[in-house]
Every structure is written in C-alpha cells, then in structure tokens.
C-alpha cells in the first residue's frame, strides 16, 4: 500500500505545493480543452443546446471513481486515507440550490471562471471578483449563519452506507446512470443541431 503518497510521508509540505501546481495546470488544461472556460458553452447546458458540462463532469467522476475502486482492490491505494468531504444535509442542499442559481446567472463556476479569465474573457474576471466578494461577505456574516452551517451533520457518509449496498454495487449503478445520461444527452443535442458557437 504505497498510495496516497503524501499521506504515507513520501514527500513533505513544500513538495506538495509543487504537486498542487502541476495538478492545477493539468486541471486547467483539460477544462479549457473541453470548452469549459467558455460561459456561452456552459450556459448551453441549461438551455439543452450543448450538454458538454454533463458529459465532461460525469466522465471525470466515473473515471476517478473506478480508478479509486480498482487501485484500492489491487492494494496499491489505501482508500481509507483519502480525505472524503463530510456531509451536512441541509446546508449542502441549500448551498447547492443557491450555487445553481448563481451558476445560471453568471454562466461560469469558480474553477471555470479562472480558466475564462485566463483566456481573456472579461466576464470571467467579473465572476471571479463576484465570487470573492460573495465568500468574503458570507464569512463576515458567519456568526449569523453558524447554526445553520453546522446543522444536520452526518460525518463521512457515503452512498454505499445510505443504500446499505456494497461499494462495488454503487460504482456499477453510478456508471450505468452516467451512460444512460450520455445516451440521453446525445439524443437531446441531435434535436438542437445548432453548432456550438465559439
């Protein structure tokens, strides 16, 4: 069990920042390559013209998900040492709704707004600035939100636990749903054969 390398002490904090940079560069590269740095393309998802967002996101999710499962099974990756975000049901539900509304209004998300700004899009810069203001403002008003923010905690709570199923069964289910989604996405896009505006 050698991975995760950082958790097992293979390298230290300073080197981890070098890793951060490298991973970030690759992250930004693939986001731009797929057109995720273009607000017009992202918005296309929500008008059922261009479902690239769904395809990119879910392909990425199932790739990493399958990778974690099989590397864990092979004994190469200690899956329990991976930091899994904890669950707070109500704040994440509310946060998701609010985030989705903001996404529809701006046409970009935090990561893609940085890509957009990096590729010359002024609207990308505006989203970055807005995000910063929003996070700063929320932080300043944090005492008022604190009770809600910490409500309904579940700790680390995963789909296998929720459905009382094995991790493999859930992995299988998610992949099936993703592929069904891809099929539907292709069908929807064929109905709107308007070419993606560059």
């Amino acid at each position, binding site marked *: 069990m050698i991975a995760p390398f950082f*958790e097992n002490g293979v390298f230290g904090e300073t080197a981890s920042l070098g890793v951060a940079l490298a991973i970030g560069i690759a992250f930004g590269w693939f986001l731009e390559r797929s057109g995720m740095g273009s607000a017009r393309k992202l918005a296309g998802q929500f008008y059922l013209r261009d479902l690239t967002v769904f395809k990119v996101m879910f392909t990425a999710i*199932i*790739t990493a998900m*399958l990778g*974690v*499962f*099989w*590397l*864990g*099974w092979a*004994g190469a990756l*200690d*899956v*329990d*040492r*991976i*930091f*899994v975000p*904890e669950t707070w049901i109500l704040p994440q539900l509310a946060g998701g709704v609010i985030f989705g509304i903001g996404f529809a209004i701006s046409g970009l998300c935090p990561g893609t707004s940085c890509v957009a700004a990096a590729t010359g899009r002024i609207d990308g810069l505006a989203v970055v600035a807005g995000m910063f203001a929003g996070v700063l403002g929320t932080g300043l008003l944090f005492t008022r939100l604190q009770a809600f923010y*910490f409500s309904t*905690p*579940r*700790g*680390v*709570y995963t789909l296998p636990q929720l459905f009382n199923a*094995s*991790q*493999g*069964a859930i*992995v*299988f289910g*998610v*992949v*099936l749903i993703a*592929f069904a989604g891809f099929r539907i996405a292709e069908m929807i896009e064929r109905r709107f054969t308007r070419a993606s505006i560059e």
Partner: protein
Amino acid sequence: MKTLSLRILAVVALSLAGLAAFAGSPRRRATASLDVAALAHDVQTEADHVTAVELARWIRDRKPALRVIDIRDSAEFDEYHIPRAERLPIEAVVKTSFQPGETIVLYSGGGAHAAQAWVLLKARGEKDVFFLRGGVAEWLDEVMNARIPANATGEAREEADSVAALSRYFGGVPRQVDSVVPIQSFKAMTARVRGRGC
C-alpha cells in the same frame, strides 16, 4: 479513430463497473495497523491525552483547526457538552478523514470510550489526536467548578488565578477550597452549571 478510442473506453468502463459489482469492496483486509510499541509509548509519556484545563485554554485561545469531538449519544450531548464540541458517534469517527493539520480532542462521559476511540484513530494513522482522560466529569470538576486553593502564593497563585479566569470565561463557578475537597456528585456539578443559563 476517435470513435474507436471512445468505444474502447466505454467498454472498459462498463466492464470495470460490472466487475466492481461482483467484487463488492475494494478493501480486502483490515485497513488499520497497530504499532503497539508506539502507542504504548504515547500512553506512558502521557502524550495521548490532554487535561481539561489544557483543552479549555485551546478552546478559549481558538487554537486553529481544533476539533473537539463528543462521542456520547445525542441525549447526553444535548444535556450538556463542552463548548464548541461536535457530536460524532465512535463508528462515524473512525470513518472520518481529518484534514492534515487538524488537532482532534475526543471526549466521552468518563473517558473510557474516548480512550478507545483514540486507539482506533491512532491505528488509522491520525497523528494529532488526544482524548480528555476524565471526560465531561473532569471538565466540570477542573474547569467549570475549578477548585481554587485559598492560600496559594507566588507561581501557584498565578496558576490558580489563571484557572479561575478560565473557568469564568466558560460561565463556570470556581470554588475556593482550603484543604479538604468535598466530593461533588455529577448531577450537582451539572446542575450548578446549567443554572447559569445558555
């Protein structure tokens, strides 16, 4: 060409997903290792626990990335809990991945369960973990109803005053004692504290 690569990827993904459903779990053996020598050393050198006063100082001074975890049930938690504590049952605690840099302090009613949770978290590789050896009882006895010797001088006096101030910070009621320390019942201690409101 591109279609071929996509087809291959799709077939591989679906096969891996199907196999995952059969495999069930990516973990084939227990994922914790007990370095008993190291753990015994921690216990011997008292590096495994914190005192209630130490914890109180950490909370008051807002030690960064401090997590105080109460592993009792919700009825006990609602009746009284250490300020800024979060409640996580022991089964959830061992599944939670903590951020590197977080300091974890576990506590229970008397300390036994927290000590068990300490062993489990250390076995999982967490580094910055402590438990409150005397549990809530120690917190109530040493912080909320701290005993202040009436005739202390010099350094002892300073320490006593510091603990008294700490006690009052949390809304506690320090008590002056001469030499005989009356044994307080748990209920009496909590009743005294709850009487202060909040």
